[in-house]
Every structure is written in structure tokens, then in C-alpha cells.
């Protein structure tokens, strides 16, 4: 696993998200009202909606396409829906954010 710097927490609006592009697709990085940061694939398990565009509430996001609610912590769909999305580890050091990606992904891309 490799930690890769992606930017500063202030780049993300409170209760908002930004995307990080990777060879494997977009990763959505979320900032909650409590300034916690989570990263998950930007791809709703239901029909692939861009989760980074959803409304963030508590530690969850509501997908903008069909209102599935996804836990930012576990990546699991909440409520009656079933499905999950990959979670990615995020490190927050004084606001500087980095995410951990498989070295293989990065190596393959190089």
C-alpha cells in the first residue's frame, strides 16, 4: 500500500465532496460537518450514480440519482437497500490529506 497526497481538507467544502481521479476510476473524498474525511469509490452500488454529487449528512451520503443512502464509514447501503461500495483509507495530517492505494494499481499505470 502506498500513501499518496491528494490535497488539503480545505479544498473540500464542509458537508461536501471532491473527486480524485485514478486509473481505476474516480474516488470521492468527503468532508463531514465534524471535519472528518472519508473516501469511497464515486460509484453508487445501485446504478453507478456519482456519490460525490450527493447530499452529505452525518456520516452518510445520499446518491443524487435514486436516493440510496451510503455509509461513508463502511461503504454499505443503509436502510432497506443492499449493496456496498469500496472504502479507501484516508490519512489527515494537520489538514493534509492522503489516500492509500494498492501499489499494483500505481505500478501498472506507470
Amino acid at each position, binding site marked *: 500500500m502506498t500513501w*499518496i*497526497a*491528494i*490535497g488539503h481538507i480545505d*479544498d*473540500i*467544502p*464542509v*458537508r*461536501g465532496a*471532491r*473527486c*480524485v*481521479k*485514478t*486509473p*481505476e476510476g*474516480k474516488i470521492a*473524498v468527503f468532508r463531514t*460537518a*465534524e471535519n472528518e474525511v472519508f473516501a469511497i469509490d464515486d460509484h453508487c452500488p445501485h*446504478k*453507478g*450514480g*456519482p456519490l460525490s*454529487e*450527493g*447530499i*452529505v*449528512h*452525518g456520516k452518510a451520503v*445520499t446518491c*443524487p*440519482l435514486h*436516493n440510496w*443512502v451510503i455509509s461513508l464509514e463502511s461503504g454499505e447501503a443503509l436502510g432497506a437497500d443492499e449493496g456496498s461500495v469500496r472504502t479507501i483509507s484516508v490519512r489527515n495530517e494537520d489538514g493534509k490529506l492522503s*489516500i492509500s*492505494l494498492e501499489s499494483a*494499481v*500505481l505500478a501498472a*499505470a*506507470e
Partner: protein
Amino acid sequence: MAEKLVIIGNGMAPGRMLEHLLEQAPDRYQVTIFNAEPRVNYDRIMLSPVLSGEKTYEQIVIHGDGWYIAHGITLYKGHKIVAIDRAAKTVTSDHGVTESYDKLVIATGSVPFILPLPGKELPGVLTYRDLDDVNAMLLAAQSREKAIVIGGGLLGLEAAAGLAERGMDVTVLHVMPTLMERQLDPAAGYLLQKAVEERGIKVICKANTKAILGEDKVEGVELEDGRVIPATLVVMAVGIRPSVGLAKDAGLAINRGIVVDGGMRTSDGNILALGECAEVGGMVYGLVAPLYEMARVAAAHLAGDSTPAFVHSDTPTKLKVTGIDLYSLGDFADGDDREEIVLRDASAGVYKRLVIKDDRIIGTVLYGDTGDGPWFNDLKKKGSDISEMRETLIFGQAYQGGVPLDPMAAVAALPDDAEICGCNGVCKGKIVSTITGKGLTTLDGVRAHTKASASCGNCTGLVEQLMALTLGDAYNPAAVTPMCGCTDFGHDDVRRLIKAKKLKTIPAVMQELEWKTSCGCAKCRPALNYYLVCDWPDEYADDYQSRFVNERVHANIQKDGTYSVVPRMWGGVTSSSELRAIADVVDRFEIPMVKVTGGQRIDMLGIKKEDLPAVWAELGKAGFVSGQAYAKGLRTVKTCVGSDWCRFGTQDSTGLGIRIEKFMWGSWTPAKVKMAVSGCPRNCAEATCKDVGVICVDSGFEIHFAGAAGLDIKGTEVLGLVRTEDEALEVIAALTQMYREQARYLERIYKWAKRVGVDEVRRQVLDDPDKRRAYFDRFVFSQKFAQVDPWSERVSGKDKHEFRPMASVGFNAAAE
């Protein structure tokens, strides 16, 4: 031949008496009412919510004009009776109307007591008694200056809270050492004072007013101790006095009030008196429950049943100030033969005191937690021996019998004669039997048939529990569906409380209304954001993170995560240069699909989010602004070609459509709003399935609304015909504003109109020019802040982060 019944006064007591009488003996009397107040019968105990802004006058009317017409009752509004001629059996009004009677009912109520102070007649000194007083206070409150309320009783505190809600700096002067000393003991009075002061209201107890100061108008109040308190408004709320002058002149027996027997008969057998002007058993009454009891007795006697007699019973006192819970009942003075049980919880702000004599409750004061009030009242009324449960009595009904009861079980355990609604004196058995007897399933139905919870509404929860108990699963409390899982409040309550409590941010709403989640959810946040934008257009800062993605990035999200962009094309009219610009943008950004929409605009589909600002920049150069095709706002005004081209066209429908669109674009609404203007009844713009439609006719403009062609298909309702374009524009803007202020978020106009009634909308925005103008003005005011093109804002750099990835990682640098 019907007997003649004349009623002097049209307050709550005679209103209720008539309801009973019409039920028991509908054809016995020809009824004539003289009312000194120039209006119909309204719920006087709800004046405080009107003052504080939680209700409107229309919402507190008990019997509208139609009710009198439907029952063949003659109502003289604004007629004060000046003489009763008992020998001739006639009454005469100040307008010279003389009416004869077989039976006469005097219900002249009471007048506010005015302290005989110097300066009492200065302009700016008001009482608190009727709607005129409330209107005068509301007018005075616009100044946002200082107000003084003399009197720290029930009325005075309600007036003070209302004036404070309206933005005045309020001081309450009270002559006794603690507030509401007639209903509360000193400890509860102290807690009440703290709660009042927490609302920013100053309280001065032991305040002896010496004089009201001022030359031409009120400037302040001087106390006996020399203190001078400046103010531009002084409200006297020190008590009421029965209005007995008329009865006295007629030679009836008078004491403090008009003396009546248990059957409400005065010293003249053909004349009854009831309400605040009547004195029965040596008592006069000001609370509504005993007055309604008088109404019931009087009606029975008039209907020919002389058995019922008025019996005194204590009525609980409650304060109608949002957020302050107090309950007081009976006698709570100290005494050698009395014991008391007291519970204090300072941190929770709870105080409970029971006064007990011979193992029976004789008085109760509850502050902060009043849920057990009705139970204590029931024990007191029945004179139940409480010695068995003395240890746990103060904790309330839930702690009796070992196992704590849930609220439902507590209601189930109440006996049939337990009083549920204190205002209207309705007991459990009556509610249950009416629900089953009449097959009622809604709260409104129960209110209509039993009156329970129809007055102050404090017992609404209890009534709903009774409905749930009686109906089981058949009871669907749809009327109070919460907004979402984050709150128990429904949309209407939230909207009302945002206004009443002047809540101006989402965190303030969540804090004050006790949201159950830390920052809401995807259902409530966009709704709250809209309500706040609508209510405080100049003060509220839009919260982008509470907007659905479409409104955050000003384009429509599509299934593949790309966006579609619709520029505004006013009234559906375009030009070669606009079309050329669109064609250039399509080429340059390789936009895969271009489509003409149902609303006569051009849709460019399949645009990548990153490209949006550049697309908008290009479109902006050609003069386009956002078509808001993504918005819960005004989207399109569709038109036909109208009189300029069409051989049938009666008016310039294209011109009017453009005018409406230019006037109204940018406005946020609870749900999308689509409009259309057709130049003749052939209706080529399909105006009769729009949220608002106009059909031009020779004589003017027929305005339609509440159509739909979406999930539901529904033709419009006709609002009415206006003569000029200017009138059409004013009516449409007023209608839209009424909808903006009243609808629940995501509720389309047709659903809102169904809920409030087409007639009501027509009455407010077409028939009432003042109201229409007020709605129109509020719409215009909010447009000052709303009519900003979001595309040009983004092109100039606002919210840049939205359209760029935060980072790109893992790509081979050379490959990029």
C-alpha cells in the same frame, strides 16, 4: 311560527350556545344577532398566536359569514345595542335598528380594566381584548421600539411574548412580587419569570405604576419609586370587568356581573345572560371552559329542557406562549390543614406541587412538565383518596401500579369521564363514542364533531392517542406526517415555527426544533434551505451543500453522470444568432445530443461536468442566461404566436409570456413551476395543463392554475378573468408568492391548491386587492435577491471547486 331570539354579542359563548341550540331545536327560533365588533365569531383565546405570528385571523374564525347564512341567522356586524325595552320586548342598536324578541340573550362579555393613571388616554396606550387591539399592537411593533406591558398575568405575558416575537424591546411591569400570582405559587412564578426573561423580555415585579408619561403620545412610564422607563407603546392587561351597563339600564339585577340563576336566567324570565358578563353563584368567569358550560346550559333552556344547571368547577390555566409549559388548577394557598408534595428538578426546569387536604388533591401547580395535569385534575374532580399512592403520586400516572405505563396505556387507563379537552369540556367517553358513532378517522373530523382540541390545541396529543386507541390501525395520522426521520414536526409546523421564532439558519432551526440528527438528511436539508430562502430573502445565506446536485451545479444530472444544459429562451422565441451560438457550442464541446424540450427550449445533453463552466461562458457571450431547467423554481413560460401572427389570436400572448418570464425568472419555489400563455381558447401553448396558464380572450386574460402533466394528469382550475396584462402579471406573481409561502417542499401547485382549496386561493389573490398587493410586493422584494444568473457567477469563478477534480493520482505523467 318561530319564536324570535335576539342575542346581544357574538363572542365565543353565544356562538357555542347557538351550535347547541341548532342541534337541539333547529326550527324553534328566528335568530338575530347584534355584534358591536364588526366581524364574525372568532376564537378570542387564539389572539395571542395571532399576535406572535403563529396564526392568522382567518385561521381563528369559528363561524364564517356562510355559517350564519346557512342557518338563516341575521347578523348585524358593528351594531352596538344601546337600549333594551323590557316592556315592549325590543332592543335598539346605535344604527337605529329595533328588533323585537320573545327571548333575549345578553352576552356582552367584558371590557378591559383601565388603571386610572394620568396619561391613560394618550395615543399609544392600548388594551388587549379584541382583534382591533392586536392589529394596533402589530402596527406599533413595526417600529421595533420599546414596549411596556402593565400586568404580569396570563394576558399580559401573552401580549409581552407576542410583542417580543414581533421584534419589540418589551418590559413587563407587575405589581405583585411574582408573575401570575393568582395561578402560580412563588416558586413556579420564579421559574416562569426566568423563562420569560430568557426570551429577552424584562420583568419588573413589585412595580407600582404612578403615571404614563408623554405629551402628544406615549413616551414612557413612571413608577412610584421614581424610575422612568421609556416606551412608545403601553399595553394595559390588568384584568377585565363584566360589561353590565346595558343590563343595568334595563333594570336587571346586577352584582359584579349580571346576576343569573343556574339556568342562566336573569331577574327577567325572558332574558338570559351568559359569558363573561354573567355572574352565577357569586362567581364571574374569564376562562373559556365555564363559559362553554354556560352556553350548553342556556341552549338547553332555550330548547325547552330546563333540567341542566350550571355547576362551578375549577378550570386549569395554561399559558399560550410557545415553549413555556405551565398548568395550574384549584387552590394552592398554604394552610394548617393542608399538606403539600413538591418535586423540583432545577437543571430540567421542572417544578411540580400538589396541595392535599384530607388525602385529596385540591390544587396543582406544574411547570416545565405538565403531562400529568389532566390526571391530577381528574383525581381532584373526583375527590379520589390518594393515600395509597402518596409516595409516587408526584411522579405522575406513569409510576402508579409498579410498572411505568407508556403514554398510550396511560390514556387507555383513563376513565370515560376523564376530561381530555379543558377548553371545551370534552371527556374521553364523548370522544370515543363520537369516533365510533360517526366513523371518524381524522383529527379534523374529531375536532369538528366533538370540539376536542379545537381551541387552544394543548390536548391534541391526547386526542390523537385516543384516536389511535379507538381506531387501531385504521387511524393514520397523515395530517402530522413528520418531514423526515430527523424530526417529529410536519412541514407546516416547521414553516410556521421558522416564521414565529424568527429562525434564520439551518442550524438554528435544528437546534430550536430539536432535530434528532446532527445535520439533518437529504430530505429535510433542501426543504429547510428553501423555507429559509423564501422567508428571509434578504437575510438568509443560501446553503449550497443543502441543495440537490442540479441546483448546486446549475444543470441536470443524467443517468451516466453527465449533465444537460438548457439556456433561457424567453417565451420560446429565438434568433439566428442565438441558434448559431448554440450550434458552435455543440460543435466545440462535441455535445452528443441536441433536443427541443416540451417547454420550447433547446436542451444540450451529455456534457461533462468539467466542461460546464466553459460551455456557459460561450453561451453567455451570445446573451444566454440559465434556463433553470434544473430548478425548483420558474422554468419556462411557453407561448403561442398570438395576435401578431395568428388569425385567431386575441392578445399578444408571446409578448405577455416573455414579460412574465423576464419578471419571474430566478425565483425559487417549493417545486418546479411551468407556465404558458395561449393567444386564444384553441390553446396552442397548452396552458391548461400547466402550473399557471393564461388563456387570452377578447375581453382580457383568463388565468388558470393547478394543472399538471406529470405523474398526475390534471386540467387547470380557472382562477378568474382580468382585463389587462398588468393585472395578469400581478395576479400571477401573487399566486406564485402565496404558493411559495404555504406549500410543503416538493409539493406542486396542484397538490397545494387541492389542500388549501381553489376558492381560498381565489379569495386571497383575486378577490382581495390588498392581500394580492401584499403577496405581489413580497414576491418583488425576494426577486431583488434571486434574479442573479448562476451561470455567469460560475463563469466568473464562483464555486470553482465544483467543476475540477481535487487531484489526479496514479497516472503516468507522460501519458497525461
